[in-house]
């Protein structure tokens, strides 16, 4: 079982970091919130709409960007944004696309096929697509993983502003603890499908006797493995 009995909420304007080692269940959690994977028990609500019962209405309020879900490489930047703006039933899609092309510095690439973009440019395109429908819940799975430090800093600032100005709730996974500490209001630490810890990333390390968030991450990531090894002996 990839995820076992987890429960959390993302409030309006809040950025929640979903942390955990590889295989902890972060992507599984995101897939469940996106309606790509049905939980065996429990329910998911987006803006008060039950995902299982009203999938389309619930997903109209959300969007995502993930490194493992590249947009179709045989469509151009503009065609991809047009395609997804129609799928998300975005009204005045053309002007929204122009706005996002400008916001993410993609205007000069509008006629370039997405498969020809650099990984950083693809990330910017994925983020532009993720904002097409002005989501109330945004899921970002390692959104800055392939960006240089300068570009990553700009993206973090933009997403931070998005949460503050539009009240969009954001669920963010990252393995960059500096980024998490700087960006997230709250973190959930997942291990083997369960939430082990939850709290403010700035105070959580001290509260648990660790010097930094990274040190806490390493300790928590290894503890279950050590427990498992001890149990097997």
């Amino acid at each position, binding site marked *: 079982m990839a995820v076992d009995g987890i429960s959390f909420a993302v409030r309006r304007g809040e950025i929640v970091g979903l942390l955990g080692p590889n295989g902890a269940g972060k992507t*599984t959690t995101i*897939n469940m919130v*996106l*309606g*790509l*994977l*049905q939980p065996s028990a429990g329910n998911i609500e987006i803006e008060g709409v039950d995902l299982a019962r009203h*999938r*389309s*209405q619930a*997903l*109209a309020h*959300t*969007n*995502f960007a*993930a490194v*493992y*879900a*590249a*947009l*179709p*490489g*045989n*469509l*151009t930047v503009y*065609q991809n944004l*047009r*395609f*997804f703006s*129609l*799928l*998300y*039933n*975005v009204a005045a*899609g053309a002007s929204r696309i122009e706005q996002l092309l400008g916001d993410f510095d993609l205007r000069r690439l509008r006629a370039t*096929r997405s498969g020809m973009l650099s990984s950083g440019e693809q990330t910017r395109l994925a983020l532009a*697509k993720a904002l097409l429908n002005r989501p109330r819940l945004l899921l970002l799975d390692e959104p800055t993983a392939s960006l240089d430090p300068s570009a990553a800093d700009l993206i973090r600032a933009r997403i931070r502003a998005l949460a503050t100005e539009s009240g969009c709730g954001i669920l963010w996974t990252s393995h960059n603890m500096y980024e998490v500490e700087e960006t997230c209001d709250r973190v959930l630490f997942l291990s083997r499908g369960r939430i082990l810890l939850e709290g403010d990333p700035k105070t959580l390390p001290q509260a648990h006797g660790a010097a930094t968030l990274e040190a806490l991450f390493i300790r928590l990531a290894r503890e279950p493995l050590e427990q498992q090894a001890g149990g097997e002996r």
Partner: protein
Amino acid sequence: MKLRPIIAIVLRQLYLMRSSPTRVLSMIAWVAIDIVLWGFISRYLNSVTSSGINFIASLLGAVLFWDFFTRVMQGVTMAFFEDVWSRNFINLFATPLLISEYLSGLVLTGIVTSLVGLIAMLLLATGLFGLPFFSLGLLLLPLLLVLFMFGIGLGVLASAMVLRLGPASEWLVWPIPALLSPFVGVFYPLSTLPAWMRAVGYALPPSYVFESMRSVLAGRGYSAGGLLTGSALAALDILLAAWLFTAVYRYAVRSGLLARYSAESVS
């Protein structure tokens, strides 16, 4: 159902066709080869036999009908395969898109692409070989409609199969028309077949199309009951295929297959 998501599926295919002439060429090239090949065979048979049968009308007409059905089916499956090939399921099914909207988009794409193929076939068959296609008159409409409906149903069914079995099962889709053709009597009456094959043939809508076509060309008129049966069977096929696709999609969401689709799992 909303209109914009349906348009999105069609528009994506039009974008791809516009940017890649090979996609348009493939819609025309195979039917052109078929028409030319069977056109010359029909012309040759007309010259060496004195049976009174116009082979241009009966053989070439049958090829044209069969290719039309194949184009419709492939129009649906190719639009679906674009999402398989570009590993787009996560992006696609994380949107508010309804399955009914997705299938409607695939069907509309099938209409557009099959019409391109049909026009190319008609131009070649009438221009090069003098196929009296329109001699069937208004009967053409129900004949094409039955084939169109069956092509849609089979295209959706094939897409459901690939969704369930994984991308590697794509090769199972291509031979489907060839597997069906002996049973539906494209080139010969169903009475030629042994009883068990005839029974299978009567369960397949195209059989009624080809029987009607031959009957009209032989001056015997057509069976309205037969065409109605063909239409009803084709409509039933569409409903069954749509139900199956929805069931497979729900299974894929329940089991996690959809999220890890590109791993080509068949578990």
